[in-house]
């Protein structure tokens, strides 16, 4: 049955969403998309609502994307980055949250290096909480913008073969994507060197291989992940040259996928590490469409969490 609102005040992950809620988010984002092409990129929908962007971890793309979405919907936003804040002066997370709550924001967008921090805040705060990435756990808005991009290019999610390759172990993007794609009926194949494949990941309902050529066979979508060198304590593969030879996507390799297959990357890209420039700059790559869809998806999330809700006014 079609739903018209989300059940929760928070968006903590894809894991807790139903396929109907995912479809609602994607349909709403589709409608939001046209605002980007208007002369006046602003609608009054969230006038007077306050959103706090709480980024404990470096982010350019996601933070700009949320900020743009907030501005286009006329919400007031405050930006908080851990650097130069009270966190550096030794304040605990709970105290930071309580102080924020005292300013009565309507929504908090949070990115944190530790998994579960958004969930903890969501339990403590009256305001809604949006997870903008928690450690290697989830990054729901990224999965939604990926799904929107796939749906726009290929018309559907159901029945598609999606191959995700690279640093699976350190990626929150991949976890959210697995939840979303499997809920929506796509077949997911994960690929990467054994050191970057977490044990028992196949229990999430995906196929796993270390052979990239095999993983690409018949894929509709090829999603390349960034080699997260900053999260890896020690070297997990011998050299970047060897990594590219075994797991880098170039023109020759892409021929194994379906003829109309699209190539995605959550960014920022390491050219020559996981993806060759000839692919990144080709018309098969939808990487910039992903960025544009990021704003639309975040507008949809803000709108659906901050618009009218049955529990308001209780």
């Amino acid at each position, binding site marked *: 049955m079609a739903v018209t609102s989300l059940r929760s005040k928070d968006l903590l992950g894809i894991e807790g969403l139903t396929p109907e809620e995912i479809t609602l988010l994607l349909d709403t984002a589709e*409608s*939001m998309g046209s605002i980007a092409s208007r002369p006046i990129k602003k609608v009054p929908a969230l006038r007077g609502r306050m959103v706090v962007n709480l980024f404990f971890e470096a982010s350019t793309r996601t933070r700009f994307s949320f900020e743009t979405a907030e501005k286009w919907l006329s919400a007031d936003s405050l930006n908080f980055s851990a650097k130069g804040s009270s966190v550096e002066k030794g304040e605990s997370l709970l105290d930071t949250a309580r102080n924020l709550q005292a300013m009565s924001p309507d929504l908090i967008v949070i990115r944190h290096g530790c998994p579960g921090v958004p969930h903890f805040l969501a339990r403590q705060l009256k305001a809604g909480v949006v997870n903008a990435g928690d450690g290697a756990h989830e990054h729901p808005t990224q999965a939604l913008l990926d799904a929107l991009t796939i749906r726009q290019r290929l018309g559907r999610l159901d029945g598609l073969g999606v191959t995700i390759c690279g640093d699976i172990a350190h990626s929150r993007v991949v976890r959210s994507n697995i939840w979303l794609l499997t809920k929506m009926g796509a077949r997911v194949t994960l690929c990467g060197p054994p050191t970057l494949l977490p044990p028992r990941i196949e229990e999430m309902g995906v196929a796993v291989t270390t052979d990239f050529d095999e993983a690409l066979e018949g894929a509709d979508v090829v999603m390349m992940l960034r080699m997260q060198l900053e999260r890896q304590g020690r070297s997990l593969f011998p050299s970047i040259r060897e990594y590219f030879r075994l797991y880098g996507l170039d023109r020759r390799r892409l021929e194994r996928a379906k003829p109309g297959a699209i190539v995605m990357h959550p960014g920022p890209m390491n050219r020559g590490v996981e993806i060759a420039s000839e692919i990144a700059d080709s018309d098969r790559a939808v990487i910039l469409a992903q960025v544009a869809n990021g704003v639309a998806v975040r507008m949809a999330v803000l*709108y659906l969490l901050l618009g009218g809700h049955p529990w308001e006014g209780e």
Partner: protein
Amino acid sequence: MTEELIQKAKILDADRIRRMIDRMAHEIAERQKDLQGLALIGIRTRGVPLASRLAARLGDLVAGSSFPVGTLDITLYRDDLSTVAPQPLLKKTEIDFDLNGRTVLLCDDVLYTGRTIRAALDGVIDLGRPRAIRLAVLIDRGHRELPIEANYVGKSVPTSSREVIQVLFQETDGADEVWILEKPH
């Protein structure tokens, strides 16, 4: 709408609706000044069939001309977004012509409090600067909460606030009919 409404009376049938739209098209055609660069914009959902029918009739009446038709979704401009439940479903605004310097004829099925039209005016103005904006509605049922009036009215229907006007169009509902419904006591 969660509560059940009782069908009270059918006040217009397909033939009456056709003749009303016909008459409205004639009235619009008589205002020569408005025809210069006229564009019709239907407010979702049932303003859209009204806009396309008026545009088709105007095309017949004014030889050698055709008028573009667009669709406006006012959801993001509503003044009750934080209080309505269930949340209105956001749909697309589809206006693929330039509004600057045009006369825009906003079309909606029912004029009631005027709040939808207020939202639509804001929505249109964000898309460009029309020379003028006019309003055409199939039914004016009174009870205005804002100083807004229609330039072209199919029929004025006095109602009580317990009543609801339901306009059905072939394109959206499979039949051309106007009903008065009533909320139960």
